[in-house]
């Protein structure tokens, strides 16, 4: 007899409301259905009411984890529409933030995946190492999430050489820790028993469903927007697209962990090669009538933005397609025939992107504290801890 097992909209497996319906016979999944739409916030419509320079701040809030991916894809679309040149230094800064974001996103996923199969130690350890990446992002941009660095034609703020150099020791430890995590996960026989051969996505199915990002790369398709539609500095950097043939959950874990190492390598190259002088913003005057598209490789796969302009200062139409939209349907191929116990890790293995991650701060009884000042002070403390020199602004603040 077939029973329906609901996973969601509220379930310990999920951080955000989403509804999976597993039809099961005994413990075997015979069908799966996904209902989404609990998080609709009308961002595309909101975008039409903002000016071109305001939209990055809006689309940054599409997702807390990919908070660089969406603005980047949007800027690529606007730059495509208006044939806007981006200075080299701005491209370096954009790529740097993008790769750091990929590291933090993949570590976050590795931790969650561990949690889903009951391995809470991996969960806590991966998130501890991820914390270092967030510190780095705060050091370089001033924010842990929602970096507010993007604008059409360049970036909003400089990154100073001393900050870049200050990032090196953290990157080095991060590299060691990621390698340790990679070895620990791949050498664990029990983990292997849980992940190997589970939720296999054959290459033809991956193509048929249009899977993106690590999900497709784990099935042997070298689809990567960084290589297919080069943007930023990826053509100059020495890196490779990681692929695995197996298509199972273990392969998806492997691809993500190896990509983390690849991203650390790229970040170090960027620190070596980035010029210290030069413009960071081409300051485009206006966006002519027309349309443009942006393909950006977000940590979860290709993020696609379409922007249409009528020559005014606002986009007429702005369409967003997040990678998860393409990765959801693969459940039909991967979950069916597996047990409920495996279904949960398979559902999580495409890294469905919940628009999430909110950073809260408790100020009970401290209403006198200015949040901005507190944030600046924390960044300054962090810099001191990492041994990076203070900027003139922070010296003034200290006095």
């Amino acid at each position: 007899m077939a029973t329906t097992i609901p996973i969601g909209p509220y379930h310990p497996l999920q951080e955000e409301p989403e509804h999976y319906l597993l039809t099961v016979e005994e413990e075997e999944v015979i069908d799966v259905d996904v209902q989404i739409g609990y998080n609709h916030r009308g961002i595309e419509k909101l975008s039409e009411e903002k000016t071109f320079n305001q939209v990055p701040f809006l689309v940054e809030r599409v997702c807390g984890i990919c908070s660089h991916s969406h603005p980047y894809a949007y800027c690529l679309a606007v730059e495509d529409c208006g044939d806007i040149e981006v200075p080299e230094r701005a491209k370096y800064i954009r790529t740097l933030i993008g790769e750091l974001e990929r590291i933090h996103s993949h570590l976050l996923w590795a931790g969650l995946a561990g949690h889903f199969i009951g391995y809470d130690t991996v969960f806590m350890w991966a998130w501890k190492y991820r914390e270092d990446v967030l510190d780095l992002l705060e050091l370089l941009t001033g924010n842990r999430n929602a970096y507010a660095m993007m604008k059409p034609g360049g970036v909003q703020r400089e990154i100073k050489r001393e900050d870049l150099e200050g990032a090196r020791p953290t990157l080095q430890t991060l590299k060691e820790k990621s390698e340790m995590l990679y070895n620990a996960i791949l050498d664990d026989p029990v983990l292997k028993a849980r992940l190997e051969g589970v939720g296999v996505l054959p290459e033809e199915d991956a193509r048929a469903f249009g899977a993106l990002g690590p999900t497709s790369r784990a099935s042997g398709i070298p689809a990567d927007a960084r290589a297919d539609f080069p943007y930023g500095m990826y053509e100059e950097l020495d890196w490779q697209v990681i692929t695995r043939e197996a298509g199972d959950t273990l392969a998806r874990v492997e691809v993500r962990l190896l990509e983390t190492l690849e991203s650390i390598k790229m970040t170090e190259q960027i620190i070596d090669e980035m010029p210290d002088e030069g413009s960071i913003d081409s300051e485009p005057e206006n966006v002519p009538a027309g349309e443009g598209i942006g393909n950006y490789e977000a940590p979860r796969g290709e993020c696609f933005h379409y922007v249409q302009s009528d020559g005014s200062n606002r986009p007429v139409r702005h369409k967003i397609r997040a990678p998860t939209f393409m990765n959801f349907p693969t459940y039909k191929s991967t979950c069916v025939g597996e047990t409920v116990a495996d279904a949960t890790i398979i559902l999580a293995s495409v890294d469905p992107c919940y628009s999430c991650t909110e950073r809260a701060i408790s100020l009970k009884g401290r209403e006198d504290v200015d949040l901005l000042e507190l944030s600046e002070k924390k960044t300054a403390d962090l810099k001191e801890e990492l041994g990076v020199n203070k900027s003139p602004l922070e010296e003034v603040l200290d006095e």
Partner: protein
Amino acid sequence: MVGSLVFDFFVFPGLLFTLAVGILASWVVRKVSALIQWRVGPPLLQPAYDIAKLFGKENIIPEGGAEWSYLIAPLLGPAGLLLASIILIKSNYLGTSFIGDVIVVLYLLVLPALSVILGGMATGNSLSAMGSNRELRLMIAYELPLLLSITAAIVKAGGLKLATFTGQPVAASISGALGFIAALLCIQAELGFIPFDTPEAETELMGGPLIEYSGPLLGLYKISHLMALLVLPLFLVTVFLGGFSTGWGALWGAIKYVLVLVGIILIKNTNPRLRSDQALKFFWYGAAPLGLLALILAVVGDLIGMGWV
């Protein structure tokens, strides 16, 4: 006489003592897990607060469930564990023991699992039915190796009375050590700890059999788990590690108990959850042959008169 019986059942070594040590053990589990995971961990009395909170809440009986079994099932676990704890502790420090009490304790230790199965089946919820189903499968998996390894220990110690095990560390021989390892893994499953927490698997079944339980009835299940944290490792300590006695022996016994507990916590924190079928295979094809080997070695050692085999 009645007074001393009441004292035995409700104060020491009965309800109060078992609960108090269980709460302490539960805190140790949570604190050590937290330290392994770079967290801070809860304060000492957190498990007690949790239980107290549950007993202040409302009982909700699900519609469409079997009301009576739903209400009675949670009582089975604590009842069985309470008796087991009294028999174990008294046999250790007073030497009051009767023939076959090892077997009685083994039977009593089945009750918590049965109570979870019964309660889960009574709710009428598909997720908890699934959890009960998994618990049943897990029980079938671990009972066989547990019985084999305990039998090996009985052969080794040469008696069916718990008192014969006291002061006689069975695990100090090859067969005893193998049996201890097999039994430790079974205890891990009996406690419902990772890698054998399939019935409750919060990210799959959201608590499984306990999903519909709330308030004091859920509190009873939690109490059952707290008591199991004392009784099960203590059973291992008694049967395989020579138990404990009064005076300094009690301290030595406590150290052995904590070591077994920490071993269980380490296994819990360095493994992911196994699937039901994998757990079954693990126990039948891995732990059971180990227990059988222990039993054969124990018998052979007994026949040829070599104590260390």
